[in-house]
């Protein structure tokens, strides 16, 4: 624990060298990624705003009460939020562990949970579409599918990104670029969890309140 000092303390997932140029480069790269995913936050904020105006706009199609199943949404929540934990362990393994095996293990568990989440969500979407709830049936359903679907699309991209990182780990080992990408990927993964918490509260819980 005591061995962590200076620049390493500031970049929690990264065992950087003490080279000041490297620390500066990492700072600007990670900051750039923050700016990027804040633009994703703006996108989600807009989709939430649109969704917020739509719950009553069902035009005769099934509304939230008929469409949402709290049990499935709850299990999806558990899967996705749990997936942040192995990624946290991956960050620690990236920083402290001399062996790559543990890092690889957590980087396999994380997207596996994400893919399980996506599979359940996909099944939900298919059930809804079959049950007179397709995306083009009402404004409410359009807003629902674009908001929740956009989150699902981001999780899909994150899962693909994690698998690409596993391949890069096997080729390059833990070089600077791999470490940097993993730190950015972890930021994005945790960010999507936060968005899901908002979706679960605003879309599912609020939709099911009588």
């Amino acid at each position, binding site marked *: 624990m005591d061995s962590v000092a200076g620049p390493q303390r500031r970049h929690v997932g990264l065992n950087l060298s003490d080279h000041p140029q490297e620390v500066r480069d990492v700072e600007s790269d990670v900051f750039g990624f923050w700016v990027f995913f804040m633009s994703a936050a703006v996108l989600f904020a807009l989709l939430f705003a649109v969704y917020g105006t739509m719950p009553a706009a069902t035009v005769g199609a099934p509304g939230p009460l008929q469409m949402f199943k709290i049990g499935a949404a709850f299990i999806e929540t558990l899967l996705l939020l749990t997936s942040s934990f192995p990624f946290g362990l991956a960050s620690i393994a990236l920083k402290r562990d001399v062996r790559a095996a543990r890092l690889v293990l957590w980087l396999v568990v994380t997207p596996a949970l994400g893919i399980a989440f996506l599979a359940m969500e996909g099944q939900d979407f298919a059930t809804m579409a079959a049950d007179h709830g397709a995306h083009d049936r009402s404004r409410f359903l359009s807003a629902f599918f674009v908001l929740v679907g956009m989150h699902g699309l981001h999780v899909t991209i994150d899962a693909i990104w994690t698998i*690409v990182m596993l391949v*890069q780990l096997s080729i390059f080992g833990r*070089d600077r670029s791999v470490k940097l*990408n993993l730190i950015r990927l972890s930021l994005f993964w945790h960010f999507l969890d936060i968005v899901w918490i908002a979706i679960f509260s605003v879309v599912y819980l609020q939709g099911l309140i009588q």
Partner: protein
Amino acid sequence: MQLTISIRDRAANRMPTGDPWDARSLEWSMAAPPPEWNFATIPQVGGLDVFYVCKRNGGAYRPADHYRDIKMPTPTACGVIIGLPAGACSFGLVWRIWWMAALFLAVAIVTLIARSFMREMTRIIPAATVEAVDRRWLAQAAAARPISRQLDQSPSNEGLAQWTA
């Protein structure tokens, strides 16, 4: 047509010193065409119309005290290989040509992933190269015949403007 004429007459219209009409701002203070790193040293700006003022107080067309290494990105076609297919994908989405959207989306994503496997994204231009190129241009500028505003449309314009205090 504009491109054709520009390319056809490029030899007659060349003005390597880069300032054909006693311009004011910094983009005119370098060679035409400029080297890939643009400025040999980072210019210090203390006011408006820096280049215009520099020409009048003798600060323009001088070698730098110190030339430094310049870090440049390595040339890559990835931007084009992602951008054009992304445009084609959008076209497919707008007109509901699903095979086109899927195909070009895949091309863009595969290129993006392939790009992430590349290392060596930057290269260093040594200070000596920067200095040599800059001094060659300065020598060319010193040999150029200054051109007055009245004649700046003529082919004898080598890109060195005649200026008066």
